[in-house]
């Protein structure tokens, strides 16, 4: 059954495997948030969207037997939450951070409520793509079984970069985010552009939730996200609103999740609370390093977080 132990090689392998397995939710949520924030609005509610996506994907996959349908429904459920956020957060003098916090509570509450009957059943999982045809080592084979949603995220990152830089629609979003007044003078509907960005971003976050419940760890429970949605929002700041850097940052966070268990499995027992906390410590460090009162953040959309008068 199992082959030889890998010993110390297990640690880098586990981190690589953890990166490939665990970074998809970070990646999809942070890309969604990147799109949203480029248009000048913050959507903190993506933690709730992630849970809602995870629940609806699992439920639909279980009820219909088709995990792909589950992924689509997760995206649609995300869009539904995005619509609420997009509408509420754009009312005059409404603070989008406050709405986002309400949406975390609303999204997760709704997911927990509707998800109660689906905690126990086992839903069909997404197929895996194996990149390990060349190796006979079972550990490597397992590590290189990749989620199709991860590949989707990796493909979206450079596409989104290109979209922002070179496409007319990308320019519109950036214009609305950087200088709403100028965009308005051009005759662009700020409301519609922001609504579209928030809804599209929430679609991606919903799919990120599907990756949690239908691939890894591959089950629905109320503790499934453990704050990943919020970390992904922080990660966008770290990545300076750049989609390709979101990809790198997500890989880093996915790998950090694997450090604690991997070190314990080879007998490094000391400080495992510290190693287990590494994704959170990383978030804090990033915040400390990137936030300075003396300078504004480069790359931040000009009107980010400002309420409309």
């Amino acid at each position, binding site marked *: 059954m*199992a082959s030889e132990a890998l010993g110390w090689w297990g640690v880098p392998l586990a981190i690589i495997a953890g990166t490939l397995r665990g970074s998809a939710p970070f990646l999809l949520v942070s890309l969604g948030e990147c799109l949203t924030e480029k248009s000048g609005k913050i959507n903190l509610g993506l933690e709730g969207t992630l849970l809602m996506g995870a629940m609806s994907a699992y439920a639909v996959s279980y009820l219909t037997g088709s995990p792909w349908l589950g992924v689509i429904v997760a995206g649609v459920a995300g869009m539904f939450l995005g619509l609420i956020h997009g509408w509420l957060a754009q009312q005059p003098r409404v603070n989008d951070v406050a709405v986002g916090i309400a949406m975390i509570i*609303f999204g997760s509450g709704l997911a927990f409520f509707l998800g109660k009957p689906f905690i126990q059943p086992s839903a069909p999982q997404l197929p895996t793509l194996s990149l390990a045809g060349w190796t006979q080592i079972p550990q490597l084979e397992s590590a290189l079984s990749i989620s199709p949603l991860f590949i989707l995220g990796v493909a979206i990152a450079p596409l989104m970069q290109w979209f922002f830089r070179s496409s007319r629609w990308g320019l519109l979003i950036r214009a609305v985010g950087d200088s709403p007044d100028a965009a308005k003078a051009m005759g662009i509907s700020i409301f519609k552009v922001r609504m579209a960005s928030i809804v599209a971003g929430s679609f991606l976050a919903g799919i990120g939730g599907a990756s949690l419940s239908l691939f890894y*760890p591959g089950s629905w429970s109320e503790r*499934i996200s*453990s704050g990943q949605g919020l970390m992904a929002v922080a990660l966008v700041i770290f990545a300076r609103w750049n989609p390709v850097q979101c990809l790198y940052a997500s890989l880093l966070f996915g790998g950090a*999740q694997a450090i604690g268990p*991997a070190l314990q*499995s080879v007998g490094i027992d*000391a400080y495992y609370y510290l190693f287990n906390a590494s994704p959170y410590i990383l978030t804090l460090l990033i915040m400390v390093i990137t936030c300075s009162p003396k300078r504004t953040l480069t790359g931040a959309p000009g009107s980010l977080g400002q309420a*409309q008068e």
Partner: protein
Amino acid sequence: MRKPTFQVTRRQAIRGLLATGAFGLTVKLSGCSNSPTAAGGNDTLTAGFIYVGPKDDYGYNQAHSEGRASLDSLDGIKTSEEASVPETNAVQESIRSMIDLDGATAIFATSFGYFDPHVLALAKDFPEVQFFHCGGLYEEGVHPNNVGSYFGYIDEAQYVAGVVAAHASTSKRLGFIGAKPIPQVLRNVNSFTLGARSIDPSATTQVIFTGDWADPVREAEAANSMADQGVDVLTCHVDSPKVVIETAERRGIFATGYHANQAELAPKGYLTGAEWDWSTVYKNYVSLLQEGKTLMNGGIPHLVRGGFKDGFLKLSPFGPAVSASAQQAAEAAQAQLISGELVIYKGEIKDNQGKTVIAGGKELGQTAIELEQMNWLAEGVMGSVG
């Protein structure tokens, strides 16, 4: 100022926000479902059950909920239950409404962290209501008279699971995913290992602590890391073993379950599992209560504990990968535990630092207080409690 698409007054916006927030909060905070089971007569006893997580989690809470469900068939007892109640003031609110609204006179608080300060505080406010807490923390003279505690020696079942695991393993490397290094978890790790080493003294158990009772991603990481290290039988002590058992099955290694029966999650690799059998415990309590006995009049003991012999535990049915000899050895071990011939903690036992923790010739029975304060890992366990 832009022309708004929808014209909404400030008052309407605030009302909308409040409604959204309130709805979200209600949905989040109310995991409540009352299930009255018998028509309430005057002498109907009402018991309230509170769980820390969802009641169908393939784990600790499901085991308690199944125990509660076994009371449905009895006459003269009505139960109400509430799931997903966190170990905060929320549990006090839940208990209060069970007493005030449902008329509960016996409360079964099933999570360890409910006891201090929540159950203790309410026991003072409601001296006529009896509080039964799962976790065995009651101390005579220190805690109120209307508080009792119950707990099972599930490490007996873990010992038997260790016996089965050692038979099934080819690498003789077993894995244990624990939540936190507290005495109950360490005792399970040690009993599992001692059971395995009673079959093959060269067997070792790698232990990984995730640091949290429920953290699916880290549990899956831990299971994968151990599979990479050549561990071929996994078991765990977390609130819901679902992710661990499913990950083990996906990696093609064996698993033994915990809390409840997880056989259907791993049809190929599930060997057996250490399960609670709370139905016996709850039925006993109910029949004592119906006889008019209480904690206060001394009719019900404040501390109720037991193992296989007292019907607190059961083993999951053996899976297809369990050999006939393994089954025989497991059944023999179980029979010896019931008869008392087999004492798990019998000297000499060394910890994994080489220090003798139980001297040669000394036997610590299940009730021994030393075992409840366990802070060491037995020889053959790879890991540390620090």
